[in-house]
C-alpha cells in the first residue's frame, strides 16, 4: 500500500516537474526554476541551535543568546549565498558525441553567466552517474561532459540532469532538474562475427575477387591481424595489441581492391533485425579502421561504397535509425 502511494506520489511529482521544467535548449536558472531546502547537515545545525538556545535559556546567559542568534542569522544568510551561487547560471546543451548501445554517449553542457559572480562547487549529475563538480568565475564559459550509458539504438535523450549546490556552508541545498532537448544518436550494439567469405561482396552471384584475401607482403591497405609467425617483419607487428596483452600479432595489408565490399542485410540470413544490425555495425567499424571502402545495403537503403569518417558516420547513422520510429521532438 505504502509502495503504491509512493509510486503515485512519484508519478505526480514527475508530472509536476515536467510541466514546470519542460525540455529546453538553453536555460538561465532563477528563482522560478530553483528549489532550496536544508540538507541533513542543515537540520543537524538547527539541532545545534536548539541546544545552544536551551543552554542560553537555562544559564540565563545573554552572551550565549547573542552567539546563538549569530549562528541562526548565519543560517539565514546562507540561504541567500546558496541560492545566489546557482541563480543566474546559464546552461546550454552543447555537442553530443554518439555512442554504441551498451556503451556511453557523451553530452556536453556549456555553463556561462551574464554577471561576474564567483560560483563554487556546483554539482551536475545524471541518474546512475557520479556528479561532476564545477566552479565558475567571471565571464568564462565552461564545458562539462557527462558520459551517459545508452542501451538502445536510435535517438536518445538524456534524462533530467540534476544541478545541485550546497556551497558555502553545506546547510542548505539548492537544486533543479533540467531536461535538455539535445539528443544522442545511439548506434547498434556491435557484435563481432566472422565475415562470410563471399558475403562481403556486392553481387551475391559474383565470385569473390582473388585478391581479396589478405597477404602480408603488400603494404597498401590494412586488412586485419594474424598471429605472428617466425620470420615476419618486425615492422608489421601490432604493438598496440601486444600492449593490450592480446599476444604477438602482425598487421596484414591488402593491395588495392578493385571490387567493392558491401555490408548487406541479406548476408545474415536467419537472424533477427537487431542481431543483423549489430554485426553490420561491428563490420563497419573494422572496415573503417582498415580504411577499406565499403557500402551498405539495407532493405530500402543503399549507400554507395566509400571510405573516411563521414562515410562511416553516415553508415552508422543508417544502422542506428533503421526502422526506428522518429521520436517526438525530432533530433537536435
Amino acid at each position, binding site marked *: 500500500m505504502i509502495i503504491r502511494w509512493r509510486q503515485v506520489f512519484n508519478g505526480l511529482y514527475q508530472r509536476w516537474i515536467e510541466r514546470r521544467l519542460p525540455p529546453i535548449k538553453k536555460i538561465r536558472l532563477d528563482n522560478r526554476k530553483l528549489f532550496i531546502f536544508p540538507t541533513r547537515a542543515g537540520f543537524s545545525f538547527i539541532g545545534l541551535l536548539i541546544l545552544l538556545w536551551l543552554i542560553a535559556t537555562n544559564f*540565563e546567559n545573554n552572551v550565549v543568546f547573542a552567539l546563538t542568534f549569530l549562528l541562526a542569522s548565519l543560517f539565514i544568510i*546562507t540561504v541567500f549565498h546558496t541560492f545566489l551561487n546557482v541563480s543566474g547560471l546559464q546552461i546550454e546543451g552543447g555537442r553530443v558525441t554518439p555512442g554504441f548501445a551498451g556503451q556511453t554517449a557523451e553530452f556536453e553542457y556549456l555553463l556561462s553567466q551574464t554577471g561576474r559572480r564567483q560560483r563554487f562547487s556546483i554539482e551536475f549529475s545524471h541518474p546512475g552517474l557520479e556528479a561532476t563538480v564545477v566552479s565558475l568565475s567571471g565571464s568564462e564559459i565552461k564545458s562539462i561532459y557527462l558520459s551517459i550509458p545508452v542501451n538502445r539504438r536510435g535517438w536518445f535523450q538524456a534524462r533530467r540532469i540534476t544541478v545541485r549546490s550546497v556551497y558555502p556552508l553545506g546547510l542548505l541545498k539548492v537544486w533543479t532538474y533540467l531536461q535538455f532537448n539535445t539528443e544522442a544518436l545511439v548506434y547498434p550494439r556491435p557484435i563481432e562475427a566472422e565475415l562470410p567469405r563471399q558475403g562481403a561482396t556486392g553481387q551475391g552471384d559474383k565470385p569473390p575477387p582473388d585478391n581479396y584475401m589478405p597477404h602480408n607482403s603488400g603494404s597498401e591497405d590494412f586488412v586485419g591481424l594474424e598471429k605472428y609467425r617466425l620470420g615476419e617483419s618486425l615492422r608489421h607487428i601490432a604493438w598496440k595489441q601486444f600492449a593490450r596483452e592480446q599476444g604477438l600479432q602482425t598487421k596484414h595489408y591488402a593491395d588495392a581492391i578493385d571490387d567493392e565490399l558491401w555490408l548487406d542485410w541479406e548476408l545474415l540470413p536467419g537472424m533477427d533485425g537487431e542481431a543483423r544490425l549489430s554485426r553490420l555495425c561491428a563490420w563497419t567499424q573494422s572496415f573503417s579502421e582498415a580504411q577499406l571502402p565499403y557500402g551498405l545495403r539495407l532493405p530500402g537503403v543503399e549507400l554507395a561504397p566509400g571510405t573516411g569518417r563521414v562515410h562511416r558516420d553516415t553508415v552508422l547513422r543508417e544502422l542506428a535509425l533503421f526502422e526506428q520510429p522518429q521520436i517526438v521532438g525530432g533530433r537536435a
Partner: protein
Amino acid sequence: MRPLWQIPRDCLFWLLVSVFVSIGLHLEHLPPWVALSGIVAALWQIQLYRERWHQPGRLLKWSLAGACGAGLLLHYGRMTGLEPMVALLFTGYILKLLEIHHRRDALVLLYLSYLIIILQSLFSSTIVASVLVLVALLPVTAALVAMHGATDNSRPTTALRTGLAMILQAIPLMLVMFIVMPRIGSLWAVPQPNSATTGVSDSMSPGDMTQLGRNGAIAFRVEFDGPIPEQNKLYWRGLVFSSFDGRRWQQQAPQSYRDGRFLQWSNQALEAWDKDIIRRGQPLSYRVTLEATNSHWLFALSTPLSPSSSVALSRDFRLVNNEPVVSKLLYPVRSWLDNQLQAESLPGWRHQIELALPAGYNPKTRAIAKQWRAETPDTAAFINRLLGLYNQEFIYTLRPPALGRHTVDEFLWGTKKGFCEFYASSFVFFMRAAGIPARVVVGYQGGERHPSENYLIVRQYDAHAWAEVWIEGRGWLRVDPTAAVAPERIELSFADLFAEQDEFLSESPFSLEHLRHINWLNNLRLKLDSLDYAWAKWVLGYDNIQNDLLLDLLGAIKPQRIALLLLFAGGIALLPVFIMLYLSREKNTRDELDRLFLQYCARLDNIGLPREPGEGPRDFAQRIGQQAPSLTAQVDALTQLYESARYSEVQGDDLKRFKAALKAFKPSRKAFLHGA
C-alpha cells in the same frame, strides 16, 4: 586504514585552527593534560594528512578513551558540574580528531567546535572574552566554507574571506533577534561554573578584610536616578553579623528570629515585622549591577526595597537574591535614607541575641566596659567616649599586627593598630559587654564616581565593616568606629587615601589603577570602565530592560506582535545584505587589465600618440618606438607585461606589476618632441 574521504587541505587547516582556538579559550578551566592531548591529536592529524603516520588502531583508541574518562574522574572526583562536563565534551572532541574518515566526521568536529567555543561564554562573559569568542567562530566558519567550496588547491584565505563576510552580514540580523527574541527564563536547574570570586564572605575574623583592601576588582556599579549622594552616606549594607564565637562574627540563624518569616518577597503579603520599618521622605532610586559573588546577599543603602520579584527584604533589613549570584546581576533598589528601624522596642529574645558574648574571651574588655558603663550611664555619651578613645590612640593601617586568642583585648589595650573590621568587632563587643544591643554590619563604603557618566564604581578595596547599636526610642543606629580613627577613610574614597601605600592593590598587580596619577591613563581607565559598564547593563543584563523596551515598542507583549516585529526588523536588517549580495560582482582581473590598458593608451593619446583603431598592443608599441624613441624601453616593458597578464596560463602577479609600471609611466609631450 586508508581514509575514505580526503579532507580538503584548506578545510583541515581551518579545522586545526579551530581546535587550537577552542583549547586556548578553555585553557583556564581544563586539566592541563586534556589541552596537551588536544595538541598531540592535532599534530597526529597533520601527520595523517601528510601520510607519515597511521590511523591509531581500535585498541589504542578505546584505551585512550578509557584513560581520558579515568583521568577526568581522578581530576574532578565527580562528573556532575559544568567544568567536568565541558572537559568530557572536550575529550570526545579531541578523540574525534583522530578519526576523520567521512565528510560527516569533519562536520561533527566543526559543529562541536561551535558548541565548545560558545560554551566559553558561560565561564566568562566580559566584553573582551565575548569578542574573543566571536572571533573564534571565524575559523570554524572558514572550515565549513572550505569543506563545501573546495576547488583544488584553493588557498585558506579564500575560505576565510567568505566566512568573515558571512559573519559580518549575519550581525545585523543577530542584533534584531537579540533585542526582540523573548527570554523565557531558566527551564530547569543547571550546574553553574565554579568561578573563584572575591568579596565579602559570610563571616568575619581578624585579617579577613585586609585581603580585600589590596584588591582592585570591581564589586558592583551603581547608577542613580538623581545625583550621587555624598561619600559619607554611601554605606552599602550586605551582611549583618549578630553571632560571635570569640574570633569569628557570623550571621544569626534565620530560625532564631521568631516573629514571622525571615524573608519578605515583593509579591507576598507583608510580614508582621514590616511595621518595624519607618520610611520617611522621598526614596533614592538606583540600579546596582553586581559582579558574580556566588552568594545570595545583595548590597544596598539603608533602608532598601527592591521591586524585582527575585529579590527579598530580610528581617535584618538587607536585600537577598533568590539564587546565588553566579554572573553579573542587575537589580533596581529604592532606599529611604531617612528611616527608623525598630524604634519601638526590642523583644527580650532579641535582646538576648544582640547581647550574646561567648564566655571565656576578652575578660579585660568586659571588665572595662562594665566599669565605663557605670561611670557613663548615658548611651550616647558612652558611645562617644569609646570613639574618643579610638580617635586619640589608634592607628588605621592596612598592615595590622596578628592577634592571639583574646582578639578584642589585645587590639583595644595592646596593638591599637588595625583595619575597619578590628574597629567594628571591638566596638560591638564593647557595647554588648556594657549591655547595649549591637551588631556588626559588613558591606562596602563609598566608591569612585565616574567623572563623565553618572555612576559609581565600588571596588573590593571599598569593603568595610561597621557597627549598629540599638537605642531605645531611636532604633538601630549606624556607628562607624573607623570614622573616629580615620575620618578621611569615610570622607575620601579609599583609593584617594591609600594610593601612596605599597599595600594598595598589591593583589591586583596589573590594575591600571596603579597609574591613577598619570592623567590620560586614568581617563583611559575610566573610559574602559564605562564601556565595561555599558556592556554589563545593555548586554549582560538585557533581560531586565527587554520587557520595558518591548512594551514601549509594541504596546503589549503578545506573541503575534513579537513575531511581526521580528519579521519586520529582520527584513530591514537583511535587505542591505541581500542587495549587496545581489549586486555584488566579483572583481574581475581581466576587466581591470582592460581598464589599465585604456589608461595607458589615454596617456599616450594626451601627448599626441593615439592608438589607431584595430592596432594591437605590439604594433602600437612598435609605432611609438619609431615616433618617440625615448619611450621605447618603457612602452616595450609595459606591452610585455600586458601580454603576459592577458595571455599567460599561470595566474601570476603580472597584473600588479603592470599596474605598478603604469603608475611610473608618465610620458610628457617633451619626451615625444625631443625624441622626434
